[in-house]
């Protein structure tokens, strides 16, 4: 605790921040900064021992063991580890503040086909959750709407912003398709709900067919230069056809995923599977069809009662082995996304190398979200989205974030929880 609080005190002294509400976004980078003597985990698998990272005007200018630091503000990172800012690849951050308070939920719109819905415009930069992610190394997040079947578009935000326009890092990069479940749930009777007589699988298939119809119609519509009646829903998916957008298909079981592959084939979309609990069963098919995968939650029970008890933990290693582009996410609604690094750590315990696990929450995530040209690794020319940890960022014992930079701006590593801790430590005289 001491170190952190020493650090917080420094922050407080320098930025005069006292409460969560007044943790201000940092000003643009003015001086060149050099992080020296650190172990640099590049994000692409490479590790540079005793290395230096230099960045200026928000961009990384030099990475290596022989970088010249003259003219730069030097932060000695001896014994510390440098990582690319971690990327939360699918979340409702800033859309859902408190899960069970309806008024705070802005993630699920009414209706089944809402491609024109945009998450970005509802993203709340003042969510209390945001600052608790930064202190765990997460600097970017993909904000995903989750209502209906076609839920709308997601945008990637950087987590140090005054408002959603500031926050936007990649706008409307993904269209989200929550595929109706093809799991035969039978005709189980639930409280309050009448048992449906329809075969749930058939019902699911027919709804999936409706989505296909939608895209076929959209394609026809978009092929026409002028329209008497503008269709916003069709307009909203134009980026899918010209590959400015990816189609994120949220699904889990093999039948669903195979149909997702079919979407990629029929329409030529860039398809990313989200969830993909059983992706390990068809890793070769996914690889062959260039389908990327976001594994939503590693800290999960196995899908089947008979499954290997550690199946969710070892799925990443199986995808890695098959050469599938995948990333690891944390969408836990109780700990609120902050255990991203530890989900990756678990994947490392079960078969990934540490650097592969890191890629799964940095460079791979960036590639899947279409921002790998700007971020995801510590390489010259990329945005200086960087975190410095006391030790191994994947392990909770050593994941102690001491510095973080978003686009070169040194952000304040403070949050409401630290402040509450400080308040009561003071009360009890804990040093």
């Amino acid at each position, binding site marked *: 605790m001491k170190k952190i609080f020493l650090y917080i005190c420094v922050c407080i002294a320098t930025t005069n921040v006292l409460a969560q509400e007044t943790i201000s976004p940092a000003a643009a980078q003015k001086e060149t900064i050099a992080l020296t003597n650190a172990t640099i985990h590049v994000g692409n698998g490479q590790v540079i021992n005793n290395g230096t990272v230099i960045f200026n005007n928000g961009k990384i200018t030099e990475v290596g063991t022989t970088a010249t630091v003259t003219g730069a503000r030097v932060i000695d990172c001896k014994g510390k580890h440098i990582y690319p800012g971690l990327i939360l690849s699918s979340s409702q951050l800033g859309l859902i503040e408190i*899960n069970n308070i309806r008024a705070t939920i802005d993630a699920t719109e009414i209706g089944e086909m809402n491609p024109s819905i945009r998450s970005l415009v509802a993203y709340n930069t003042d969510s209390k959750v945001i600052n608790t992610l930064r202190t765990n190394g997460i600097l970017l997040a993909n904000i995903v709407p989750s209502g209906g079947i076609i839920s709308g578009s997601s945008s990637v935000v950087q987590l140090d912003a005054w408002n959603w326009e500031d926050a936007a890092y990649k706008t409307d990069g993904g269209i989200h398709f929550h595929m109706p479940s093809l799991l035969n749930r039978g005709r189980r009777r639930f409280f309050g709900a009448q048992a449906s007589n329809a075969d749930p699988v058939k019902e699911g298939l027919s709804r999936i067919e409706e989505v296909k119809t939608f895209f076929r119609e959209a394609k026809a519509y978009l092929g026409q230069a002028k329209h008497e009646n503008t269709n916003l829903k069709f307009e909203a998916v134009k980026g899918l056809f010209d590959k400015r957008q990816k189609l994120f298909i949220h699904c889990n079981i093999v039948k669903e995923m195979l149909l997702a592959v079919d979407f990629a084939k029929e329409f030529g979309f860039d398809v990313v599977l989200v969830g993909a609990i059983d992706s390990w069963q068809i890793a070769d098919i996914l690889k062959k069809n260039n389908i990327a995968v976001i594994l*939503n939650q590693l800290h999960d*029970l196995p899908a089947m009662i008979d499954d290997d008890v550690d199946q969710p933990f070892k799925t990443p290693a199986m995808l890695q082995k098959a050469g599938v582009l995948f990333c690891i996410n944390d969408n836990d609604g109780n700990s609120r996304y902050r255990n991203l690094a530890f989900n990756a750590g678990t994947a490392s315990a079960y078969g990934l190398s540490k650097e592969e696990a890191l890629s799964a929450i940095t460079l791979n995530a960036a590639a899947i979200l279409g921002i790998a040209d700007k971020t995801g690794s510590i390489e010259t020319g990329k945005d200086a989205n960087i975190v410095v940890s006391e030790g191994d960022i994947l392990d909770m014992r050593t994941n102690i974030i001491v510095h973080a930079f978003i686009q070169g701006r040194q952000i304040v590593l403070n949050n409401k929880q630290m402040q509450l801790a400080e308040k009561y430590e003071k009360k009890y005289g804990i040093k």
Partner: protein
Amino acid sequence: MQKLKFLLVLLLTATSIQIIKAQATFPVNDVANPKIACFAFTNATIVKDAQTTLLNASMVIRQGKIESVGNNISIPKDAVVIGCRGKYIYPAFIDIYSNYGIATPERQTGGAGFFRTQQITSNTKGAYGWNQAIKSEIDAYKIFSADAAKAKTLRDIGFGAVLTHQKDGIARGTGTFVTLASQPDNFVLIKEKASANYSFSRGTSGQSYPSSMMGMIALLRQTYLDAQWYKNNPSNEGENITLKSWNENQNLPQIFEANDKWNDLRADKIGDEFGVQYIIKGGGNEYQRIKEMSETKASFILPLNFPAAMDVDDPNDLRFVGLDDLKHWELAPGNAAAFEKAGINFCLTTADLSNPSEFMANLRKAIEYGLTENKALDALTKTPASLLGLYDKIGSIEAGKIANFLITSGPVFAEKTVLLQNWTQGIKNAVKDENWYDVKGVYNFIANTNTGAKAYQLNLKDGGVAQFINKDTLTGKYSYDGHLVKLNYTEGRGRNATETILSGAVTGNTWNGTGKDAMGNSFTWTASFDKAAAEKSDSAKTQKPLALGKVTYPFLSYGWEEMPKQQNLLIKNATVWTSEKEGNLQNTDILVKNGKIAAIGKNLSDATARIIDASGKNVTPGIIDEHSHIAAASINEGGQSVTSEVRIGDNLNPDDINIYRQLSGGVTTSHILHGSANTIGGQTQLIKLRWGANDQQLKFAGADPFIKFALGENVKRSTSSQGNNRFPDTRMGVEQVLVDAFTRASDYQAALKSAVNKSTVRRDLELDALVEIMNKKRFITCHSYVQSEINSLIKVADRFGFTVNTFTHVLEGYKIADKLKAHGSNTSTFSDWWNYKMEVMDAIPYNAYIMHQVGLNVAINSDDAEMARRLNQEAAKSVKYGGMSEIDALDMVTINPAKMLHIDKQTGSIKVGKDADLVIWSDNPLSIYAKAEKTIVDGIIYFDRDRDAAMRKQNQAEKARLIAKIAALKKTAGPGGSGGNFRSARPRFEVINTCEDHYHSHGLLAIDSEDVDNQ
């Protein structure tokens, strides 16, 4: 086989309904037609009971009763004689688990979901008891009315009498014993009150309590006590027809519909508490725990509804089919055989069959699986009759008994045997009368045509096949209805085929008739019996021994075929985290003997011990989860705000895969808590994760009893979707619920003390638990979040003179740590959950650290089946959030929870003399990279990564075997064939119990118990 030498005088009547008794008080709308109704059945094989068979015997029945039976009895002059040569006579079957003739009440809307509006009081009008699900006052005989169609269905499969009751409620009143005779209701009632019936289903009651398995058990328990107390006519109760009936019903046979192996044991246990031995209606999976069934000493009523095989033609559907479901499909027909083998008394029922016509086929399947025919007959006749004390009236062919019997064409359970007639109360019911006469055999057939007589040899064969043999063999069909015969044969093939048709009448062994050939020519014909058909030897069905899988404990993947044994272990060269003042010991050995830690030190040796090399590995005490909801059939009794009478221990579920999964994360002891639906929840149960043990063996013996309390949003039902109508609705009200409960408990305690005759004071199980708390015999673990509510409970506890042992969750504990310390509470918290509901907005991951620094005994708990298997890493988060030392962090999941659960003398640290509850880790146990390699409970290795790897392969192989078996069956069976029924593949869902609103993922097939209708 059957010859036509003898003539039968029997008249086959078209209708089976004959009123043999005119009811004296009823006017007659006809000319009076009194009958003697005496019949003699001669020359039959009479199976009097499973032990006694008489050959060539006769039986006389008169006025619905058996008058005499034997080999040399005289046939009364007034008897109608029915020759039964070649036929078999058996006692008709008895089903004592039926609702025949009793309408099923409809359930009203409503329910008892966590967030539903509640029906607090009973909707039953009248001077009845407080709970709508206790319906002791219902008497089946008063509401019974025969159902002709259903009676026929049952008679057609051999039944002659049933015990029927209204299947509604937990206590269902009395059942009545009736025959299936087509008689006025007044005559079929054999015994008005023949049983008292119970179940684990609220039925139509919409009352919110009880909403859980343990609530139902608690309600039964309390009702037994209330009924006893009511015998003193307490003035403060007034007339209570329900309790009065309950008492009156106690001397009847007590039948409990339990429907599942664990429920069977739960029911039996309630009975044991009150000196009642229930007859248990099982569910068909009892073979999975046959030893435990035997230990109940109960008699069972077993259904024969075997699961249909699942379609196995889609690998993606098969992916979600459970090994246990497949195994149950294979093994379920062996249930009755397992009972017989174990020497357990049982009878059989048609209950639960989707179609009663499956009964015989399924019974034959049970016989194929090893049930003996004698036992099967007993289970359908003598046993059910005896269980009701009615064997002197029914259940065998014995003079004086009710004339309920079957006439069959052969041994009753043989596949080819036809049930010809089923007589109930001396009245014939034709089932397959057309098969009474067997005309198979060889005949001399002569057709007198225009062109002269043509002679054929006529062979009548099984299946109505007729062959006319002259030079060629012409094939056709025949049918015989007891009076007239029809035949035909075909000449030529395809287009040129011509048909000759014949019909005639049968007179003894000579048949006469007319025919018409394809050209339209008429002719007459005769046929005379020559000789019997050559018997086919019945050797075709040489029984191959069944190749079946094995029962495992538990009946799931990763279960044991044989339970693991305790062994002496010597763990060598480990880094030992003692959770004692010694801290961590390097290169240290641990000797385990007889389930205890025998020695800790360097260079230990023991010749009897299995050596486990733990070089480079870490050993910690087994992890203790202070707050868990696994391994229970129900977790929340939310029907009332105070339910201290319910007990998690009443409804443990050893078949929870999460026991195994958590062993794989190093957990050895779990405190199974009631949920947080109400302020004073239920009594908790501490268990050790003895994978494969039964419900009682899971329990941590000798541990202090605890109880779950809860405060805040859940108990005031803040997220109730339909508004809350249950007190309390605010934290102010929560405090008053507590004050009120303990005030009532104090008064109760005083009343008990001062009463001269203790039995006049109503024993109140709800208050008993609270009195125990005040007397420091039971301890609270209280679900809590915000500081105000925590402070309030502390004040209530102070006022009533006890200490709140543990505040669990206690996410704002850091705000009030000084007061918690002063009060003497322990705290058990999440590492980093927050902001999923209002009361956790100020939750901080530094909570554990701050409380620890203030000097509280702090644990990290899971409250979650998934997180529980990573509790070591959850504890490690305090190293990150606050900088706690690693040793202190690990203590939060070992010795600290042991202390707060008062089991630190037995477990929680590595110390000589303590239980050998140990985990061998691959790495520093706090590290994200650590894996439990072996988890040891009581010196038994319950989880071992090597065995786990082998089991994965074995599970797959077993699944593959079963799938291949089903596929083969489907091939031979064809659609609708003899392979049995098929159904579409059904995913194996898992019900996951949680405390409350959870947003943590539990896998694809998880169903939150709150979402499942518990009916």
